[in-house]
């Protein structure tokens, strides 16, 4: 039987053409950064600091790892920033996953008074960071946490987005599964650890990735809450070295991409599934 609405050749070509055009637009900045990080500082200097016109300089004249060498072995500053970013973000991700998967379970599968009103607040307070940053600062100041890493870690752990996502994911699990386990005498904790968590793997994975990205990129909170420039994470630091040394900042940019890119490569499927779940249904 002939399939209905078979795409004609010209429609197919049109589709590929449109997609390729957009793909170039989307990929160019990344390719550009990676390629430039492989040029020697002198070459970058030559192309970007000259007074004349720049050309779209994509292929290195001479392949060089000099910038990476500089960053990794000659400028300890960078590695320190990397670490300044990595450990708070790791703590945040672990904390957020624990807190929000438990809360997501509660919101999705238990009835308790005020549940729906609370969840509405969760959605409403998934606001842009600027809205709560001010008041957060005030509370953190009262707690005496300003200037410490706790000031950026604690609020991030309880960010409402995680609960929202996990609630959406767990809500799609059939109730029968939980009822069956209950009849078999499993307690709530056992159900949570043995059934709910394994079944919502894609949700957990995309929460890990999204939460990691979000906090790996944080700029406002450290600037406002850390006070000491020496404590600034990579994200803030990167924006500062841009002006000083374009050569190094390309390599820095690439290295900052690495952790997230790895997560993305390994877990893209789960990430896509998880984002799909976050749809309000």
């Amino acid at each position, binding site marked *: 039987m002939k399939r209905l609405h078979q795409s004609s050749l010209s429609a197919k070509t049109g589709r590929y053409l449109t997609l390729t055009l957009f793909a170039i637009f989307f990929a160019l*900045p990344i390719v550009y950064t990676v390629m430039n990080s492989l040029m020697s500082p002198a070459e970058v200097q030559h192309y970007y600091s000259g007074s004349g016109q720049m050309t779209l300089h994509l292929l290195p004249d001479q392949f060089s790892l000099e910038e990476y060498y500089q960053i990794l072995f000659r400028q300890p500053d960078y590695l320190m920033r990397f670490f300044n970013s990595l450990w708070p973000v790791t703590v945040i991700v672990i904390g957020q996953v624990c807190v929000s998967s438990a809360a997501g379970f509660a919101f999705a599968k238990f009835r308790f008074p005020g*549940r729906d009103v609370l969840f509405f607040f969760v959605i409403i307070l998934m*606001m842009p960071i*600027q809205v709560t940053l001010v008041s957060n600062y005030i509370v953190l100041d009262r707690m005496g946490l300003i200037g410490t890493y706790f000031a950026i870690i604690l609020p991030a752990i309880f960010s409402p987005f995680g609960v929202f996502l996990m609630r959406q994911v767990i809500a799609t699990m059939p109730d029968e599964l939980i009822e069956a386990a209950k009849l078999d005498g499993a307690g709530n904790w056992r159900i949570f650890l043995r059934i709910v968590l394994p079944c919502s793997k894609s949700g957990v994975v995309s929460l890990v990735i999204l939460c990691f990205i979000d906090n790996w990129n944080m700029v406002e909170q450290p600037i406002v809450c850390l006070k000491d420039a020496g404590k600034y994470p990579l994200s803030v630091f990167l924006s500062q070295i*841009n002006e000083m040394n374009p050569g190094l900042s390309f390599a820095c940019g690439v290295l900052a991409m690495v952790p997230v890119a790895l997560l993305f490569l390994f877990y893209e499927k789960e990430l*896509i599934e998880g984002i799909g779940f976050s749809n309000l249904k």
Partner: protein
Amino acid sequence: MTGRKREAMSGLMFAAPFLFGFAAFFVVPFLISVVFTFTKNANGLKFAGLDNYIDLFGSSAFQTAAYNTFRFILIGVPLIMVLSTLLALLLHKRFLGSSFYRSVFLYPLVVPVAATVMVFQLVFAESGVINTIYAWFGLPIENWLASDRAFYVLMILYLWKNCGYNIVLIMAGLNSIPYAFHEAAQVEGASRWQILRHITIPLLAPSFFFVFVVSIINSFKCFREAFLLGGFIPHKSIYMLQHFMNNNFTNLNYQRLSTAAFLVFIVIFALVFVLFWMRRKAGDIQL
């Protein structure tokens, strides 16, 4: 204890760590800042009525910031919704390379902001790539980041970064539409356009709703890029509410800050609430 009560207790137990932190770092701070908006700081807090609001609305910096912010949302959100719907529709049918394209579109989401901003700075610099291309065609050279055009640079950045997430959301919506609908319509002789117009788009409504909310929130996140692109005092066309707040942070003007933040909250709340209400009335959200 009845079963009902027991269930409530266990539920609250699981939610407790979150509720505690959520209260401490989101709800309570939020309430405090609401109180701040009605006070002034003269030897302790004093009730000030609506003075802060009047003061804020009179400030030209705030007017500029609010104008730019809403202009950005009004142009950016519809644009990103159309673009990501188009790309999602093109990607929806599985074909050779479709998952490759999807990855390319999604990848900008995971690129660290600062790395991207740097590239955009170089591309749009006065002696940058875009101007070089302009020169080839004999067009006048523009100072992209220091003129009104900075607004469009920021818009491109916003589209570039957030399209992928929306595409995935819309594709998830597309996947939930039963193929039988499509088939039935074809058998009845509906054209592709008719199917799109009368079946696909209406059934995507719940996804569009969520994409809309996410896009607004992301448009606020984009001000981070504006900040990194332009510093504390960028070109006037990308002076956003975030700059306004950042700059007031340095003065430690809590009252003014809180008032601005609260207004942003009210606006977003109103938008989301109206949409929720509409959708709930239409009956496709159970919450």
